[in-house]
């Protein structure tokens, strides 16, 4: 069976050029970047080059990029690192109800440790009002953390305006940019963020490597203590090959960004239009708001998300549910609940996410196959009336 991958917000395939760039750092230039001999210096130079590439992708100075193990560590480091360094000032954090679990559960953990967290609600299009942030800021607020683009519905938050508000109030501002990086143009200076999380495997790089942008002068306490790698911000021998892969993926993402954004956006919009034409009772979540060009979250009435995912999988097409049901939890997605969907609506959601490497034929295949699957499941439903 031919397999089609349309679950790129979960992870992406690695570009062949990325693997090619990485290979020498496993086999020949395998030195420890802290070593002063040739092997070490080759590794160090490669890391420095990757640091520039990742920095260029987001408009940051290379020295402000800290490599680490991935998006989850970046979020943990940003949030815990600021809270720890600012404990004499206060223990209040502001975040939203649609954050990734890496931010949400870190904030919940800090709540248990005595921090106060304000969870800002989003509207029905999944958007935060910047003024809500201004109203929530208190004298003891130490951090605002708001995701840039949502992983489930793709909505893009008004980070620039929130950054402006945080700056005026003198509060540190972190944004989880894992889904946005490489998919939309961005400049951390314009966004006015102090900290910005990234992950390589979401942009055709390797798993197990990510980065946190830390604006110069931002006081942040490291999570890891050890040999003082990454300018004392993240101890542990660098994952040289992984970092090189991240650098290569960042360069390719930047070079192709303008073209891919248009191509993928058009492909996604066309896909949604065709699905709407062939299926009744479907809605696109977040379509009224600014969205990532690659993400589509479709709510299908009278059919259940996991059943659609398994049916598509049996035909060789990989997508995911909007709800967490298939990942072992019975609870509906906190993101869909936050935008005002009832649990029943949340259970019928399907997330289709494209990438730079998605071809039209793959999307055509989904558009062809999905209506039949939905009709079959609806015919089983005791509630569905044609």
């Amino acid at each position, binding site marked *: 069976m031919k397999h089609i991958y349309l679950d790129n917000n979960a992870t992406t395939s690695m570009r062949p050029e990325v693997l090619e760039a990485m290979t020498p750092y496993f086999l020949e230039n395998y030195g420890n970047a802290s070593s002063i001999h040739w092997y070490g210096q080759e590794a160090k130079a490669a890391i420095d080059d990757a640091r520039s590439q990742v920095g260029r992708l987001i408009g940051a100075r290379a020295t402000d990029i800290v490599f680490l193990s991935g998006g989850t560590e970046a979020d943990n480091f940003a949030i815990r690192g600021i809270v720890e360094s600012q404990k004499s000032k206060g223990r209040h954090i502001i975040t939203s109800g649609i954050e990734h679990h890496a931010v949400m559960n870190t904030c919940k953990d800090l709540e248990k440790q005595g921090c106060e967290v304000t969870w800002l609600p989003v509207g029905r299009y999944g958007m935060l009002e910047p003024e809500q942030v201004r109203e929530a800021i208190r004298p003891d607020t130490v951090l605002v953390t708001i995701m840039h683009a949502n992983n489930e519905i793709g909505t893009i938050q008004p980070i620039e305006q929130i950054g402006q508000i945080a700056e005026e109030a003198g509060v540190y501002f972190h944004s989880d940019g894992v889904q946005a990086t490489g998919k939309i143009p961005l400049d951390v200076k314009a966004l006015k963020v102090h900290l910005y999380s990234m992950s390589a495997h979401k942009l055709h790089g390797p798993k197990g490597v990510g980065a946190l942008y830390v604006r110069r002068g931002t006081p942040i306490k490291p999570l890891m203590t050890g040999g003082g790698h990454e300018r004392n911000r993240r101890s542990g021998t660098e994952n040289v090959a992984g970092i090189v892969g991240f650098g290569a993926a960042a360069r390719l993402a930047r070079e192709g960004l303008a073209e891919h954004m248009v191509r993928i956006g058009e492909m996604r919009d066309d896909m949604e239009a065709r699905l709407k034409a062939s299926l009744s009772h479907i809605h696109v979540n977040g379509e009224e708001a600014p969205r990532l060009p690659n993400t589509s979250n479709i709510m299908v009435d*009278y*059919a*259940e*998300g*996991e*059943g659609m995912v*398994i*049916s598509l999988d*049996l035909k060789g097409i990989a997508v995911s549910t909007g709800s967490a*049901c*298939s990942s*072992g*939890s*019975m*609870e*509906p997605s906190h993101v869909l609940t936050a935008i005002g969907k009832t*649990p*029943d609506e*949340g*259970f019928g959601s399907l997330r289709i996410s494209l990438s730079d490497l998605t071809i039209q034929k793959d999307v055509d295949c989904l558009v062809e196959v999905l209506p039949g699957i939905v009709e079959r*499941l609806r*015919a*089983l*439903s*005791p*509630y*569905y009336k044609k």
Partner: protein
Amino acid sequence: MGYSEKLLDYFENPRCVGEIPGADATVEVSNPVCGDVIKLWVKVSGDRVLDAKFKAQGCTAAIATSSFATEMLIGMEVEQARQITREEIADALGGLPASKIHCSVLASDAIQAALKDF
């Protein structure tokens, strides 16, 4: 997800789907947490289940277990049918992932509810 081939077959080609006009019992059981719902129609004659049909809205496991349990029911003595357990349904379908056990509970609950007055 770790579903067996047999379970996937009952999901893709469900048996006993539909409604029975003039059924002797019609019940609807749902799980408010995960949103799954099963509706079961049974026709009973004397101490035996003559016919049964179902409709369901839910995940793969909910549809497959509902179909399998409904099929199992047909021709069974009422007393015997009351003994059907969720383990029996799950085991016959090659087992269920831990997070999907509640789906087989839904099917056995529907059977119990449908047969309670016979």
